[in-house]
């Protein structure tokens, strides 16, 4: 762990535990994230990545463990709390209300109001156009329900929501799972851009190939436990694959086991 370094990590999650009934979905996991850094959180289905990250985004409460934001202990019980700490999340499901339009979704729960305390839809549309102008200039469907948008456009809406509110910590859960190659490339560029602006990003994926190039560090989870965190520059994809599948750190797996990964 690198807790003694300065500056303090943007996020530090210590010994997080979440159990559903008797199942330990997250079992004593600790991860951290520094400004301008991309930490990939990888693992197979059911490894506990999403559950872990939900304790940071406020969607699910941890049974035990601590979260520090900028070195200060943080209490995150609801999504609203997380947003107070400038933590924004792009969920795998996108979390969009399909029946309302893009600006309404972007500002859901944080609507812009007129001075008479009514919804300022025009101002929200204006803000949405501005953000979208940067993210996806081709996007023009601001007045139609999100249900009539394509997968990539919906993704843009979810990303625009996270970006608009000045996130310092961004959580992206399988952000490119539903996207074509061109749109994936767009998201990857965005990650680079946000990173350059000093935002810390948790990138969650079940597939190491999706995130290897973007990540600075890689944390691997298996069956609710953290296998380990490695610097991307010091490992190969195969070594990470061995962590994901067998739970073995680089050097622990034998040559034959490494061969079997590809069989």
């Amino acid at each position, binding site marked *: 762990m690198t807790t003694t370094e300065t500056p303090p990590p943007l996020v530090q999650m210590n010994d997080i535990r979440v159990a559903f009934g008797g199942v330990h979905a997250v079992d004593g996991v600790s991860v951290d994230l520094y400004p301008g850094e991309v930490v990939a959180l990888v693992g197979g289905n059911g490894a506990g990545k999403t559950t872990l990250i939900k304790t940071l985004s406020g969607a699910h409460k941890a049974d035990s463990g601590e979260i520090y934001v900028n070195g200060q202990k943080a209490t995150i019980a609801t999504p609203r709390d997380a947003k107070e700490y400038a933590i924004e999340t792009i969920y795998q499901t996108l979390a969009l*209300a399909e*029946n309302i339009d893009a600006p*309404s979704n972007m500002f*859901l*729960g944080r609507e812009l109001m007129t001075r008479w305390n*009514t*919804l300022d839809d025009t101002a929200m549309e204006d803000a949405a156009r501005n953000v979208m102008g940067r993210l996806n200039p081709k996007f023009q469907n601001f007045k139609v329900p999100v249900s009539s948008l394509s997968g990539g456009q919906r993704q843009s809406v979810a990303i625009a929501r996270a970006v608009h509110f*000045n996130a310092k910590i961004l959580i992206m859960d399988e952000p490119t799972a539903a996207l074509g190659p061109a749109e994936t490339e767009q998201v990857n560029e965005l990650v680079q851009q946000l990173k350059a602006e000093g935002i810390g990003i948790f990138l969650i994926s079940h597939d190491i190939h999706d995130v290897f190039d973007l990540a600075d560090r890689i944390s691997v989870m298996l069956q609710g436990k953290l296998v380990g965190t490695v610097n991307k520059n010091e490992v190969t994809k195969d070594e990470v694959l061995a962590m994901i599948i067998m739970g073995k750190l680089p050097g622990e797996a034998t040559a034959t086991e490494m061969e079997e990964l590809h069989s």
Partner: protein
Amino acid sequence: MAVTDAPPTPAPVEEPEERSIGSLIRATEIDTRLLGMLVALVVIWVSFHIWSGGTFLTPRNLWNLSVQTSAVAIMATGMVLVIVSRNIDLSVGSMLAVIGMTMALLQAEILPDILGFDHPLTWVIALLAGIALGALIGGFQGFVVAYIGVPSFIVTLGGLLVWRGVAWAMASGRTIAPMDSTFQLLGGGSRGNIGGFWSWVVGFVACVGIIALLVNGRRQRVKFGFKLRPVWAEALLGVIGCGVVLGSIAYLNRYFLPEQVARQRLEAAGDVLPAGGVEIAFGLANPVLIAIAVTLIMTFVATRVRFGRYVFAIGGNPEAAELGGIKTKWTIVKTFALMGMLVGIGAAVQVARLNAAVSGLGQLTELYVIAAAVIGGTSLAGGIGTIPGAVLGALVMQSLQSGMVLVGVDAPLQDIAVGVVLVVAVAIDSIYRRRAA
């Protein structure tokens, strides 16, 4: 963060020129589904007019139609939000009975003992008590739905039985009458209306309102550089809107008081009935004014404030609403409480109109209210629905019923017709929606 640094507002987007009826309608940005309903309503009206040999589209019949529609229309506006939030309220009719009975008992037996007979405050107290009771019952049911997690179908099905029983028990099945003389005005009748002059005033105020909305909307779009409606479309909307409002007032104002009532009213004012008789217009009935006010307020609530936006978001994706930081459970409680308050208003109108409360009050009303909302385009799957649509739905249903009574259709056939229309309306809506998607 640089990403939020706004680039200059883009210039208004010019839409490519199109020339077809569809594109012309699109240019006005009128809701085509609402337009379809209006067309259906006109077809129903004209058909009944011909079928009844010219008695349907008379000022008198339309005036009665407007009064008969108001109670269901008032409650349907609340049902829209309940259904949009992926819930249902089956207890509306029974709640109406309990609230109606409460208001009647207050006026006929409780308040006269405390305040004296026909005290000027009686009607206010009765009405507010009814609305408060509605909020309480609705809020309680909403609490059980949202916080305990019992499906609303079950909670309100229970409510349907419970409140019906309570209404009976409150008066042991007696009929409670008469109502306070001021309270009776809420129900319409020959006294419960605002007369011809004030109806014109209401009409002109509505006209100014329509124009103000159009102007303000355009100003907002100009301010942010958004696409504008063509000027002809704006003008057309204004002219049609005002035309419909003022035309309706002009037509309804041709329904005059019966000569006897007119004479009494003139004599009370110290005048004498002229030899040739006199034409005093009823004007808009009070329950209709209440329904219009409720429609405007509920439309505002549904589209312009946070609460309404949240109800729609919950209906579209409850999980997304929760993740957006919305207090979804509390929003559901408020939705049901609002429904209850509207039942309170609906109960006041009905009890005032009947000038009595009976324990069978409001029987099957829940079904008419739900049907009005659904005919008006509210989707039972949640997330979709409009307040004006539901009001039109109520008007369509009442038109069918009144029309069939007028032409002498047997009662069982009336039910069959209304049932068929309900299913056909929703079928057309589903097909339309699938094609639009």
